[in-house]
């Protein structure tokens, strides 16, 4: 029995990405990640110490000044350590701009609350082109 759940979403930056989920209820400034590993280095952050590289990142929103966010995305991009896709709780102009310029797949307006239906360790496919998010609870191996 396939345990995949499918949710409609809205595409912000087109593309597809999949991987293990990392969930951050805190807004993020990507400048405060280590570009070499994708590890979040902001003190007292919800996902401090976790890597977002290659993961599907579920994040509340963006924060920080109007320029450092862009550089945060850029540095992760050139080192191939961006998340494979981002699911936003709430869109905000600076994080959207940053995702557009590096072509990072991004969606929002999931039909269910993403913080309810996705948790760390789930396997997630984000298909922005089909405006769909697919979630395997507990990872794809549990299928």
């Amino acid at each position, binding site marked *: 029995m396939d345990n995949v759940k499918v949710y409609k979403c809205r595409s*912000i930056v087109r593309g597809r990405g999949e991987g293990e989920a990392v969930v951050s209820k805190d807004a993020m400034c990507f400048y405060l990640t280590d570009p070499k590993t994708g590890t979040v280095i902001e003190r007292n952050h919800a996902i401090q110490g976790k890597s977002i590289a290659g993961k599907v990142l579920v994040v509340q929103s963006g924060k920080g000044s109007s320029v450092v966010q862009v550089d945060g995305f850029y540095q992760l991009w*050139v080192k191939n350590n961006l998340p494979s896709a981002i699911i936003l709780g709430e869109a905000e102009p600076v994080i959207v*701009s940053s995702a557009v310029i590096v072509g990072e797949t991004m969606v929002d307006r999931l039909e269910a609350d993403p913080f309810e239906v996705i948790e760390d360790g789930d396997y997630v496919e984000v298909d922005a082109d089909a405006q769909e998010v697919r979630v395997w609870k507990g990872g794809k191996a549990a299928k």
Partner: protein
Amino acid sequence: MFLTDEEKSILDGERGAGYQKAMELIYALGLTFDAEKLIPIKRAHVALSGQEGDTYWCELLVNGGAVCAVPPTTNPYWDTAYLTKFFDVTREELELAERTGDAYRRIGAKLTYHCAPGLGTNVPFFGEHVAFSESSATPYVNGALGARSNRESSVSALAAAVIGKTPLYGYHLDECRRGDFLIDVDADMPECYDWGILGHCVGKIAGSRNPVLRFKNTPRPGQEDFLYFGAEAATSGAVAMYHMVGVTPEAPTLEAAFGGRKIPSAECVITNKELKAEEDSLTPATGEINLVMLGCPHYTYNQLLEVERLFAGRRVNGGTAFWILAEAGAVELAERSHLRQRLELLGVRMVGDTCIDEPCWKSFEGSLGVTDSPKCAYYRERRGQPFAIRRLSVCVEAAVKGRLD
């Protein structure tokens, strides 16, 4: 979202890759925030930083043939000609600075290298639609001047300057500019420093909501006061619009500040006690200092004069450096009036075009610095220098002694 035929043709690449990239970003933002259409702008400000991500984007546009329809003013990076006389930087750091200046020159930016455009270098009118990035500039033009800008990123502001348009959403619309909640303020606000601390308190409470401040005694804030307030409210929170009842242009009355909606009861009261507690929580460090750094946001000419007055002829301690980052026009005026030369005799140096968050300052890292700006402390700490935050008069006393007690 409605696009004109001309806008569609730019999006389809008919004017080349540079304009197409800029339009793609504007279009993506418009779709994301449900803009009905694009509107023309005649003014933009780009938070150029000299960071790779930002320079990459400017080069991508200009190498694709784009030139700005509206020449935007720009944020500072660092004065390479002057500061390399004092500090060592790597070849890579210098090259990135040169690449940045070159790209922005070619795209047709107005290279003001100043982070507070609303004070003089790029001042929008009341009600004017603009695209301003720089987190401290956006609340200034929205709140203090009543112009209309979203919280643009450096890249979206540059795209808007290239196209000469921005999507119609957010703070361009009346309903998004109204107050969301009320704060009562019953505090003395003697200096811009105090406005900064107030902004820091307000930002933490506000998040991205629009605060309405009601003062017990209506103040008359000046340029620097508004600037410090907004800079800190946008650092501790994401405030891009605010009202001060009886002070700011869209809040002649409490009713107007809330745009005719129901006026909520005050969420909190901020008094001298709260401001003191906030200041104390920000500034515990004391001890030997190797640097006093002022000018985040950039100092004005009046602030330079105030520094001289507070020194009263005394000199900076031999083990301490004293740097003021100021608007280039203020530095030029200081040179003409010999204020710059008088301050240099006291050991105070000033530089235009330069931000606190640049590689030239790295030789001070590892020791304690003092600043009058929480925003300065926040960014420098990330680069490895702890900062104590004190009002200007205390910064000057610390510079004379070489230590902060």
